């Protein structure tokens, strides 16, 4: 099992990207955030296939490469659902599949407001070797990652994660604030965390010609995230915090590339991580699946 899981993971990613051939495409307008969420949901019927990667430094142990795939589907204009597969390689140790996540984001208000709330619910079934750092919660610290994969992966974690996303678009800027609460389904206390983000396209006007390198396709931003302890020990202490400037490049062909150097802000944090991602948006995925099941050829 331990050897087959990473293969299943890569096969899944490969087949998914291979399946894109001939699919409809649409230009997405993604912010550079990798941890924080804004209130912009996936367009209904569209599927975004994403691959992300984190190279992390590790004091007192081996550096690592965490990676994950996301399949993000716009179920409606107010509900986006997303499925993740996680894995990691610890250099000098091994490559392991570390679990899956299923998240849902719901927009409760129908109009755009000064501050736009989005409710986020996630179930995750991962093991202790997971190193994608998709969020920081509770008292997560760098030394948690020193445990060898063979031992860490024995520790199973099933969690429910809730987030309140508050996000605003103002004069081309996006500002977002996420507060998260996580409950391990075994008998462990609620843990908390936060993520903040700000971003803006390099220019606010669209170009009169179709182009890949126009400034409107580049969105620069910064995000900051970290833990807030647990219900018995709440606060910014004894946990890790990160600051990450980032850049997203949204191509008219439907591809988006992101890069985000990440810096630890205290002694409990990894000193440096380099995160990057590639995603592709398939327009009308829902219709194609519906046709497949119903034989509905329009």
């Amino acid at each position, binding site marked *: 099992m331990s050897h087959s899981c990473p293969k299943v993971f890569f096969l899944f990613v490969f087949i998914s990207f291979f399946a894109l051939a001939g699919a409809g495409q649409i230009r997405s307008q993604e912010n550079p955030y990798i941890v924080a969420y804004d209130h912009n949901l996936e367009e*209904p019927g569209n599927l975004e296939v994403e691959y992300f990667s984190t190279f992390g430094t590790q004091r007192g142990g081996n550096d690592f490469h965490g990676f994950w795939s996301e399949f993000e589907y716009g179920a409606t*204009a107010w509900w986006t659902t997303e499925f993740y597969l996680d894995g990691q390689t610890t250099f000098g140790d091994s490559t392991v599949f570390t679990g899956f996540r*299923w998240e849902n984001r719901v*927009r409760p208000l129908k109009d755009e407001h000064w501050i736009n709330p989005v409710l986020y619910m996630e179930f995750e079934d991962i093991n202790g070797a997971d190193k994608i750092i998709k969020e920081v919660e509770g008292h997560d610290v760098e030394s948690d990652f020193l445990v060898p994969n063979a031992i860490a992966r024995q520790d199973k974690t099933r969690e429910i994660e809730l987030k309140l996303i508050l996000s605003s678009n103002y004069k081309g800027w996006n500002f977002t604030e996420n507060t998260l609460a996580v409950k391990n389904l075994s008998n462990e206390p609620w843990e908390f965390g936060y993520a903040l983000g700000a971003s803006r396209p390099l220019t606010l*006007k669209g170009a009169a010609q179709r182009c890949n390198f126009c400034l409107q396709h580049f969105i620069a931003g910064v995000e900051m995230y970290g833990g807030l302890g647990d219900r018995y020990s709440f606060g910014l202490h004894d946990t890790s915090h990160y600051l990450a400037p980032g850049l997203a490049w949204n191509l008219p062909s439907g591809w988006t590339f992101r890069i985000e150097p990440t810096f630890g802000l205290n002694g409990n944090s990894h000193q440096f991580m380099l995160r990057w991602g590639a995603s592709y948006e398939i327009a009308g995925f829902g*219709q194609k699946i*519906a046709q497949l099941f119903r034989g509905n050829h329009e």
Partner: protein
Amino acid sequence: MRTLRLMGVTFFSLVALVAWGAGGHAENTDQQSVYAEIAKAPEKYRNKQNPMASDPDAVAAGKVLFEEHCEDCHGVGARGGRKAPSLRAKEVQEAPPGAIFWILTNGVVRKKMPVWSKLPEPERWQLVSYIKSLGPMDDSGSKK
């Protein structure tokens, strides 16, 4: 093993959800009820002037943006598609530019029109310039 089983169940539940939910998108949207949303634009927006109206590139830029973000649903030349109504209808073409801008900003999320506030304001106004430049077209496809 249990994780793999749980993952499989979750994944195939999602595929079933997509297959079930997508059926609604294939059906024609109730066009009149979508057009009726334009009339709900607040007075403040209806009275807004298009700041890109005097920009000679606004229509061309709006066309590029339309092709990238809107054409998949609203069809080529905004003539209407499987998922969204024509924007050449008189309800849209005769609407004040500010009302179209308001729809773009807020979407009609209960009727499948997404919120486009993630596009900066100048780009939304460029889209308005392009849509208004198309002119009305009747159901037979001929320009009025």
